């Protein structure tokens, strides 16, 4: 019986980084309570992937295989996770708070009739009982959550929250094969449409450059795209800019957009409405550029420039270009 099980999210047969992050956190928690850590893999594994999962902290790999697992279908994956849980019998089950994990975890929770804590950013054990910390109101507040007695507890874990262990090649894991029940999924992915450019997703980005109402129109976002290119940053936007139709909603940061935590967040021409601040104020460093020195964004900014973005941003782009070349 495993204390913890981590559903490894596979891309081309390899576990995504969030899965390794969850293995590290599960290891830490299991160390406190003495349980085992299992990795659950659904579908084909790339060569050496089981060994890789072991090197990152898995004691057991529960490998579920079956034709209905690819392409992704929530119903099939839920059946796969259930089959693996029936085998490994974990006390606690982690999934990534990714598009896929957030789609799959509630199905599994309902199928097993157990509680699910979403988008967790921290865990602690209190007299042996697991407590999770998670943002609510898009980060305007935090809540600590506990589960009732039903097992496994399920949690989705926010990517970039924990650091993977140093891989240890001497660690070995037992691989247990579980066969997949045949599932006729009634909803199935049939295609993928890639979004703009080569930018990282906002939720994965290390640097974000966001524009707000002062961008005045879609064409001026070009100024920010140039800065993004120099910095390798991802382009964001405030709700005002999205609702004006200047940029697609997938770029929106805030309470009805993405909640982000990059190393550096540039808020350009963004006044700092409370619903925007909710989505970005956990960024490590915040840089604000705004004409209005009384704009609320300066209250959360680590560094601010009071000035006209149309003058400042091109100069800043040029300075970065020169400085980063050296």
């Amino acid at each position: 019986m495993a204390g913890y099980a981590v559903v490894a999210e596979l891309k081309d047969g390899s576990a995504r980084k969030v899965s390794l992050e969850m293995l590290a956190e599960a290891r830490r928690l299991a160390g406190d309570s003495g349980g085992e850590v299992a990795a659950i893999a659904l579908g084909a594994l790339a060569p050496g992937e089981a060994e890789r999962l072991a090197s990152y902290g898995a004691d057991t790999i529960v490998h579920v295989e079956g034709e209905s697992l690819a392409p992704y279908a929530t119903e099939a994956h839920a059946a796969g996770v259930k089959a693996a849980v029936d085998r490994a019998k974990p006390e606690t089950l982690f999934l990534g708070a990714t598009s896929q994990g957030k789609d799959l975890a509630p199905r599994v929770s309902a199928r097993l009739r157990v509680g699910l804590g979403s988008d967790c950013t921290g865990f602690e054990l209190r007299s042996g009982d697991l407590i999770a910390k998670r943002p609510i109101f898009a980060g305007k507040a935090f809540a600590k959550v506990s589960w009732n007695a039903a097992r496994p507890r399920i949690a989705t874990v926010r990517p970039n929250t924990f650091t993977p262990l140093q891989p240890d090649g001497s660690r070995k894991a037992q691989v247990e094969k579980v066969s997949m029940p045949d599932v006729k999924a009634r909803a199935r992915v049939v295609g993928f449409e890639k979004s703009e450019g080569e930018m990282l997703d906002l939720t994965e980005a290390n640097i974000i450059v966001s524009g707000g109402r002062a961008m005045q129109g879609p064409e001026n976002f070009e100024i920010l795209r140039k800065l993004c290119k120099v910095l390798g940053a991802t382009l964001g936007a405030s709700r005002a800019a999205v609702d004006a139709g200047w940029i697609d909603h997938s770029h929106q940061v805030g309470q009805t957009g993405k909640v982000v935590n990059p190393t550096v967040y540039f808020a350009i021409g963004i006044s700092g409405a409370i619903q925007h601040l909710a989505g970005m104020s956990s960024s490590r460093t915040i840089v604000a550029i705004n004409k209005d020195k009384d704009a609320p964004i300066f209250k959360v900014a680590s560094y601010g420039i009071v000035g006209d973005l149309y003058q400042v941003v091109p100069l800043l782009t040029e300075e970065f270009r020169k400085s980063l070349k050296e």
Partner: protein
Amino acid sequence: MNILVFVKQVPDTETRIQLKDGSVDTSAVKWVANPYDEFAIEEALRIRERLGQGKVTVVSLGPDRVKEAIKYALSLGADEGVHVKGDGVALWDPLAVATVLAGAAKKAGFDLILTGKQGVDHDWSQAGIILAELLDLPHVSVVVSLEVNPESKRGKAKREVEGGAEVVEFSLPAVITAQKGLNEPRYASLKGIMAVKKKVIPEWTLADLGVDPAAVSESAASVRFVEFSLPPPREKGRILEGEPVETARELVRILREEAKVL
């Protein structure tokens, strides 16, 4: 085509969250229909308009104040609204909420269920998907584009994922959870607002739905909040003023040499 829309009432996104006696203080909150549910309502109305037939029923679970969210949906053009009384229900628990909503869905009847991808209060992003599982239906979550064909009982949706959109084909009936970008919600018309006055909003209790109160009670909740906190205040920042050339150069120097973040 009978379309059910589940709407939650949440604090307006402009609300500053404060704590009182260890809980979120809701005394001064302005309650609104959950923004993501607004996209669900709009999509239901558009499907009805496109098909030239059908009925849109809006259902909300909670205390009496949720009637305001129902009235708002009716003013936009929903045909009927139902208030499911939340007395004794663990309203913070997605599993309990979805169990009650599943009962309401069975009683109301449906060909399609729409709701928001998440409530902007607790941010669980669960109830719609759990509802699908409890009703033994397929679902597509975080949907930004939707087509449904009542004759073939098939649908096609795009859902937002990291770096793009997945195209998903599904069979009806199904549960769809709406993401911003699905549509642009309309405003209520004066006619719509006047029409609400004549509408009767029936109240359903757990007994009406055949839901066991013990199973969805606060003491049976699958998850519970044990503590709340506010984010720590940020350190006071440094504001650069002066000539744009100077401030730009200084900012680059600070970020690279002092903060060492770039």
